[in-house]
């Protein structure tokens, strides 16, 4: 199979290095000697999937520390897909070139709502039935994990199980359970797996709806199946598995660098932020552990850059010390340190300069909203003063390119807030022109706000496509030189919104859309809106029901059965505070604010350094 692919197929496709495997540090375990054979399937192209840190962790975890094996597979680009279909080649894993339908478990990583059509396409290319109910004893178990699975209901029909929360402990337990019950029938194995905390087997639950189409109830149909599924998490990140020898791709990937995960979680409590709610609480790694992980990563990969990843790296208590130490150790070898999106308030000139010593990148800041009023509504606790000081410091230190992130369609947004964005950009530019020797480049990315499950805004309506388009036109009316605005697509955002807060009825729509040719929906060149609308119509489903409706205080949501540790009462209170524009401080600064996660999950805020 491999020979044929190398000789006949790959010379005819774009970017063939996506499909060859064999990269440095790839692990190819002995198939026969391994217990459960799992393939990590990423529903997007190689260069996106290989950039994903969770996949690197799980790949190393299963292969290094268990008797099971994990291989990898990614969505083939349409040119490759066409050739595979034409030549009758099944989607294969990059390690052993084994078709996916020969694995025991096919595990998808769901990072983005609209990647679901790629999931279906990959299953179809693998010869695996798309619907869970159609799979036979010999078919693999198809599972999923990742942030999108905090509302798994729109995908309930396609997956045999969802693994909710962090995978470090959960995935090995799940695989062990399958191994122990090998030989039993599919349903019994799933029943046994459903007893593991964090495992959700959708087929074991029944769902009923009210006349107004909202959810009436959802309950397990079998004893031993939990009514609420609680997310899993790692309590001590210092002692959690972290890969020492990640795969180094041959081709350039999106995040082509070594990655240190400095902490998990964020308690800034931005009210729109899904990650900020579902990954609570904050757990940091110690500087000592991080330095040794940095050494391993760089030694084993040869990367020239190391990125400090987390939801809010500048909030990491040891960030100053870590950055300085890393720059001191590796700077003269030409190895740079990079920080992802920076918080505007925590930004310090000193730290920016440390990073800049070796390599200069675009400064990225996320004020999210254009006025103080709206930033208070969404609880983005930064002031204009902070922002301008940060920008000033940056331009003074020699940066000349700044990128700013905003959202359109936030709750209570008015024209004044849109003007606020334009005003803010103009002022950032004038600061740049005053302080920088070269012409400054200001870019603003304007995303459409999509309310997400498990956040304080889960009750709120999303702006309609018409509203968003009006706002976009309004923003573009004012010409600004050397300021580039880019907008997220409003149709894509609408679909994201439907799935983000959708229910079980949507799986039929998704299937229909895929059948009409929808795939790579996250890629503007492939996104097709019409087939989606036709699919909704075919099942008499109005997407506005999911996105544009103000939801009642006491509505039962399809995702309520998933226990993230954060209470619904807390989320509602935050929603109310948004209405009156009152901020909620950071709980690491003012003490516990009773979101519920620490006592519920018996875990503590884990901060390493006092400062």
């Amino acid at each position, binding site marked *: 199979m491999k020979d044929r692919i190398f000789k006949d197929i790959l010379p005819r496709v774009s970017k063939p*290095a996506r499909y060859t495997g064999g990269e440095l540090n790839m692990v190819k375990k002995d198939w026969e000697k391994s217990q459960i054979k799992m393939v990590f399937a990423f529903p997007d192209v190689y260069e996106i999937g290989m950039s994903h840190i969770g996949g690197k962790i799980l790949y190393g975890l299963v292969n290094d520390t268990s008797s099971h094996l994990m291989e990898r597979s990614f969505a083939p680009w349409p040119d490759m897909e066409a050739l595979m279909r034409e030549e009758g080649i099944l989607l294969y894993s990059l390690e052993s070139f084994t078709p996916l339908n020969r694995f025991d478990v096919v595990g998808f990583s769901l990072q983005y709502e609209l990647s679901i059509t790629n999931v279906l396409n990959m299953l179809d290319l693998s010869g695996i039935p798309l619907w869970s109910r159609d799979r036979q004893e010999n078919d693999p178990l198809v599972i999923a994990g990742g942030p999108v699975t905090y509302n798994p209901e729109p995908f309930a029909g396609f997956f045999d199980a969802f693994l909710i929360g962090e995978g470090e402990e959960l995935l090995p337990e799940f695989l062990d359970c399958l191994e122990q019950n090998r030989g039993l029938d599919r349903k019994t194995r799933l029943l046994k797996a459903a007893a593991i905390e964090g495992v959700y087997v959708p087929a074991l639950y029944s769902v009923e709806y009210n006349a107004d189409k909202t959810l009436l109830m959802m309950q397990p149909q079998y004893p031993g199946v939990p009514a609420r599924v609680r997310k899993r998490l790692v309590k001590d990140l210092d002692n959690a598995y972290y890969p020492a020898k990640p795969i180094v791709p041959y081709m350039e990937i999106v995040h082509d660098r070594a990655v240190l995960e400095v902490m998990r979680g964020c308690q800034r409590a931005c009210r729109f932020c899904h990650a900020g709610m579902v990954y609570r609480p904050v757990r940091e790694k110690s500087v000592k552990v991080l330095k040794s992980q940095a050494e391993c990563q760089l030694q084993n990969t040869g990367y*020239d850059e190391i990125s400090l990843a987390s939801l809010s790296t500048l909030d990491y208590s040891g960030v100053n010390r870590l950055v300085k130490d890393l720059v001191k150790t590796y700077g003269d070898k030409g190895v740079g340190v990079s920080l992802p999106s920076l918080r505007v308030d925590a930004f310090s000139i000193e730290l920016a300069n440390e990073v800049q010593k070796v390599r200069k990148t675009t400064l990225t800041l996320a004020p999210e909203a254009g006025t103080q009023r709206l930033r208070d509504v969404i609880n983005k606790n930064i002031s204009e003063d902070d922002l301008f000081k940060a920008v000033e410091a940056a331009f003074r230190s020699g940066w000349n390119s700044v990128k700013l992130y905003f959202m359109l369609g936030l709750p209570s947004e008015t024209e004044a807030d849109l003007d606020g964005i334009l005003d803010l950009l103009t002022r950032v530019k004038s600061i740049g022109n005053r302080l920088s020797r070269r012409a400054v480049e200001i870019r603003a990315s304007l995303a459409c706000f999509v309310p997400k499950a498990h956040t304080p805004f889960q009750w709120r309506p999303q702006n309609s496509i018409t509203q968003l388009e009006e706002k976009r036109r309004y923003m573009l009316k004012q010409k600004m030189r050397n300021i580039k605005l880019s907008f997220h697509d409003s149709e894509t955002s609408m679909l994201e919104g439907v799935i983000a807060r959708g229910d079980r009825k949507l799986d039929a729509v998704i299937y229909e859309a895929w059948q009409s040719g929808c795939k790579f929906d996250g890629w503007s060149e492939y996104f097709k809106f019409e087939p989606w609308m036709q699919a909704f119509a075919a099942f008499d489903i109005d997407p506005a029901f999911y996105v544009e409706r103000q939801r009642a205080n006491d509505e039962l949501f399809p995702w309520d059965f998933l226990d993230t540790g954060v209470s619904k009462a807390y989320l509602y209170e935050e929603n109310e505070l948004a209405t009156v524009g009152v901020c909620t401080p950071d709980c690491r600064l003012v003490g516990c604010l009773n979101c519920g996660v620490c006592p519920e999950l018996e875990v503590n805020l884990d901060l390493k350094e006092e400062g």
Partner: protein
Amino acid sequence: MRLRAQYSVGPELKFLANLDMMHLMERALRRAQIPYLLSEGFNPHIRMSMGTILPVGLWGEKEYFDLELKTMPTADFMTAMNNALPPGMLIKFCQEISPATPSLMKMVNAAEYAFMIKKNGLDLGGIVAQILGQTEISVQSRGKNKSVYKDLRPGIYGITIETADQVEIINIMVSVNEPLNVRFDELLDVLTVNGVDKELMLDFWRRGNYIKQKDKFSAPLEAR
């Protein structure tokens, strides 16, 4: 010191683009902890130059790069690099060169490509004679300017045929870089046009890169 190395790229790595190959080599240099020198400026980079660019889809027997580094024994360099390189890549020779030696890019002006063909009663000798007998071989350029037709004939220096049990190998020595760059895919077209069926083509690769001075071909680095 300045060092020149000859390396091979195995068939499993033939789909790498030039930039991928450069990153691969730089990462190997870092893993091997070679005391390479860095350029000055905001974006320091390793002072290495990949002198020969292997086209995507080809593997190569003899490719070359130059590197500037702090003094170290060349044998140690080779051992450290070969431990760090991925499977399929191997440094075969290296030696210190004078700082005055012109760059590979400036020197290399010829390359030899090999085409492995399944034995099928095809008269390869006849086909080769036919190609060499033409006074002009005009092809539409596959390079940057696709509208241009160019004559490959002056750039085809010689063709030899090797015979083995099941296969025959056509080796073609051609001109590369300035003034006439004969591309591998253009040669493939020439073979097809002259009767070599693509289906019979089992493999192709680059044999080596050369410096042609008058009628003499020498390698950028000769084994001592």
